């Protein structure tokens, strides 16, 4: 079980190590990057819920990295810096950061800011109910378990991420591009065939009759919609 996927971007190994230890102990899945370039590459290949981004780094700095991330992704960004001037805070927020924290910071404050940022995310596990019940199908987001007719179904991480995103936006038609970018990353906007394959697999696993889906519905020429009853468990 993971409370969220966090990417820590800092050129100082000690800071990365401390943050990794602290956040992993609180149930977060932590990845780290040494530079802005590494972070952008990591974001291209993986999906994260939040980025902790140092402002002063060699190469492309924190501010430029923040702008690049925000141009392609809705991931939450918290900037870390040693400077406390109003000008820096304004610049960071204007670059697309959601929050700003000054070093040195206390662990409770950092964790509170992370929780607050994750709560605001539309796809966050913390944002909605932790479990859903669709007739004989039971989905628990916290434990990442899916049970159908009393039997546990094995979903791959990607299949689960796709289901989680659809659950976070129930009964709404979600365009192919948005689904692809949210689950696979910003480089995958036009790979609709990928999405079809994963949706078909997911239907085989969660639908009572995959050829006549009841939950995971196709919105012709638009994308997909997860049909949920109005009051999930």
């Amino acid at each position: 079980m993971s409370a969220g996927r966090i990417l820590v971007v800092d050129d100082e190994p000690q800071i990365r190590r401390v943050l990794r230890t602290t956040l992993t102990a609180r149930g977060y899945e932590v990845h780290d990057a040494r530079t802005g370039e590494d972070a952008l590459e990591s974001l291209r290949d993986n999906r994260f819920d939040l980025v902790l981004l140092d402002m002063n780094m060699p190469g492309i700095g924190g501010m430029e990295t923040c702008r690049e991330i925000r141009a392609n992704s809705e991931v939450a960004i918290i900037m870390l810096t040693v400077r406390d001037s109003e000008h820096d805070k304004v610049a960071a927020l204007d670059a697309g950061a959601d929050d700003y924290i000054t070093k040195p910071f206390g662990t409770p404050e950092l964790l509170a800011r992370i929780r607050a940022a994750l709560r605001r995310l539309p796809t966050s596990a913390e944002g909605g109910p932790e479990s859903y019940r669709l007739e004989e199908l039971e989905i628990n987001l916290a434990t990442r378990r899916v049970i159908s007719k009393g039997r546990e179904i094995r979903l791959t991480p990607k299949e689960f991420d796709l289901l989680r995103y659809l659950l976070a936006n129930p009964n709404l038609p979600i365009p192919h591009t948005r689904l692809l970018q949210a689950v696979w990353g910003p480089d995958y906007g036009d790979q609709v065939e990928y999405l079809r394959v994963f949706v078909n697999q997911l239907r085989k696993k969660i639908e009572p009759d995959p050829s006549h889906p009841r939950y995971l519905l196709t919105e012709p020429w638009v994308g997909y919609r997860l049909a949920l009853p109005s009051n999930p468990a």
Partner: protein
Amino acid sequence: METTRGEARLGQAAVVPPGGQPDSPLEVVVLHTTTKGTLQALRTAAALAQGLAARIRLLVPQTVPYPLPLASPSIPKDFTERRFRTVASEVAIETYIDIRLCRDRRVLLESALKPRSLVVLSGRRSWWPTSESRLARRLRHLGHQVVFANLT
């Protein structure tokens, strides 16, 4: 050597999926077109297989002309196997190679693919239908799910 419906299967060791894979029933079939296209299709299939916990089968239909016996292709089977092992080694995911001898590729595909298979093939996208795009359309018509990897 196994011969069914006018086709022969080569390299029994390569045909059997490694370990039997009881936990991974899904199979991504990469259909050989050209070497460059197959490489591109293998890369696409590797990304798919990783996300779906599937295995990859590289299906190589090898046409044997009528003057030759079906079991004696003009290109030796060892050579074909070696060549495709090198091609398959380009992807990090374990791939098994399924070389099939046949008279007609289209007839072979009807028997070599399970119903509703997930097939990846690569070719150039163009306004005019290419042989690969026609093949993809035919496979879709047969009920298979086809991912067409664009060859750039």
